[in-house]
């Protein structure tokens, strides 16, 4: 079956739907990882609907109770990767590294029809797979990623394996900008360039914030374009809210090199009512009557 194609308008509507669902959780539950959603909604919607070559979901759209951790008697449990379709070549695989983007990822799966309404309501409910910090049983997750910047090495291992086996398909890895402070990321890029992993793409959400504040004040990592280039990656830098730019950047030719797509984004994009909030917005509280009223009014105005 030929892959369905989506217009930029349809992808934008999907991004808006992701934002709307996360805002709903924030209103109902006193807060959520909203800013990560705002910065990455276009990126994830474009990856899922246009860029990545994924098969249909093999996961239960309603989610399942937590199936246990891997162990001698539990190796065949349903993996979170099922929601991204078959993991075999020639399909692509998607690795989300910053596990606190879990809610954003679940809502993306919901917005693109891989998770149902019943399923998404199970977000952060005790005993279900939609945990606040996802792990490899959580929908959309390939790895147990909560310790930042570890997933890229695993993803590169998969890309390397596909090369060794002569298999097609691209390994996509998504990272946040705070994660780029970890040495492991640079070790991985160094090796990906060394092994000429041109089947590997790293997409970064450069939203300029981390928990304690603006990234440049907590631990500067710029100039990222120059740093990634110097480490041997083909690097492109774009506006991470521009869907056409994301499509084009992800299709940049990178023979003999890994590709890095730096997406410059804004943590309040699509939710201007948050612009006046001056406190740290890594986790956005919606607790005070004013915060709730503001969020509700905006929610009602969303299409």
């Amino acid at each position, binding site marked *: 079956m030929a892959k369905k194609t989506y217009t930029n308008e349809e992808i934008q509507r999907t991004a808006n739907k992701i934002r709307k669902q996360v805002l709903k959780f924030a209103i109902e539950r006193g807060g959520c990882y909203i800013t990560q959603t705002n910065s990455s909604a276009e990126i994830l919607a474009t990856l899922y609907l246009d860029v990545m070559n994924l098969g249909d979901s093999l996961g239960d759209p309603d989610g399942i109770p937590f199936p246990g951790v891997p162990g001698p008697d539990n190796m065949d449990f349903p993996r979170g990767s099922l929601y991204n379709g078959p993991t075999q070549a020639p399909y692509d695989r998607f690795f989300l590294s910053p596990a606190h983007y879990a809610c954003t990822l679940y809502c993306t799966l919901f917005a693109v029809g891989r998770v149902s309404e019943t399923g998404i309501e199970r977000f952060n409910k005790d005993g279900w797979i939609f945990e*606040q910090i996802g792990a490899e049983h959580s929908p959309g997750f390939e790895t147990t990623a909560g310790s930042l910047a570890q997933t890229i090495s695993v993803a590169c291992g998969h890309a390397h394996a596909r090369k060794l086996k002569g298999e097609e398909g691209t390994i996509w890895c998504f990272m946040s900008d705070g994660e780029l402070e*970890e040495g492991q990321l640079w070790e991985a890029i160094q090796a990906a360039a060394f092994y000429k992993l041109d089947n590997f793409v790293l997409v970064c959400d450069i939203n300029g914030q981390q928990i304690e504040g603006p990234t440049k004040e907590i631990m500067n990592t710029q100039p990222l374009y120059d740093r990634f280039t110097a480490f041997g990656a083909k690097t492109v830098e774009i506006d991470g809210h521009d869907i056409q730019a994301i499509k084009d950047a992800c299709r940049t030719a990178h023979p003999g090199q890994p590709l890095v797509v730096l997406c410059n984004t804004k943590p309040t994009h699509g939710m201007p009512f948050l612009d006046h909030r001056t406190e740290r917005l890594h986790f956005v509280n919606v607790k005070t009557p004013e915060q709730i009223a503001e969020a509700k009014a905006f929610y009602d105005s969303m299409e």
Partner: protein
Amino acid sequence: MIMETNVYSKSITAWGAEHPETVVLSADLGTSCEIMEFKKNYPDRYFSLGIAEQNMIGWAAGLAREGFLPYLHSFGVFLYRRVLDQVEMSVAYGNLPVGLVGFVPGLTTPGGVSHQSTNDIGTLRSVPNMRIYSIADATDIEGFLPMAYEAGGPFYVRMFRKSVPRLFPANEPIQFNHARIAAEGSDVALFTENIATEEGLKAVKVLQNHGVSVQMLSVSTLKPFTDPQVVDALKKAKYGAVTYENHNIIGGLGTCVAEVMAENGIGKPLIKVGVDDLYTHGASKMFLLKKYNVDAMSCIKAVEKLIGKDLGIEESEIEAVRFEDFNGVA
């Protein structure tokens, strides 16, 4: 029961006033580890090292060798798992005064396996020179920094934040390598640490109501583990011992007590309550304590097994336990 807030925050800020060589290091979790007040007061002694914990550990070693007193703050897991080699080679080997203050210990975080420090004690007990501490209440926190300073060397502590119970009198500070006698009794010796102390106190109350007499020790120094009160309690206990910890039953408090029993030839049964050598997952604290059999009821069941009696205790009896303000040994 009295709950206190900002206990660590006040403590580290006061410590900073007394000891100008104190420096606080953070790896982008300062806002989650009660050190923002310290930063406000001593902005030139607060250093953000970014999300780069391995580097932070080595950096602290350099500062310590220059005469500073570095205290590193993060979630416990990020201060021992990923950074173990740096902790061993850069800090522990040199026996440097570097403090690793680990928050959200064990199952107290909903963040799942990547955030749950369920094998910190076990991992670090095999690291020479390392001192290991575990906090049980607000009083423990208040006396902690002076105690650890006196003891010297590198340390790792399982710390609490936000709302913390006051279980022990404020004028009876934590003591190095000296457990608190939280209850006197002779049927069973119960050893607890961290949140298991609060849960254990509930269990002991209910057990006392059913006529079981428990000697309960709240242990705050896990390494060294040479407190003579441990042997005394073990010798006194008619039926044997129960250990109850917010940790894997391998390598933690249970293992510490088992070693003491073997070394002293104390031939009595021991039941270890804790995470049963499993990786855990993310959910709310009480859900996890029940699911992994680390709640007060699991402690009671262990005592029942030890004394060979089913006391028919109901969950409601545990819920009914309300601590009066703690007045010394109860």
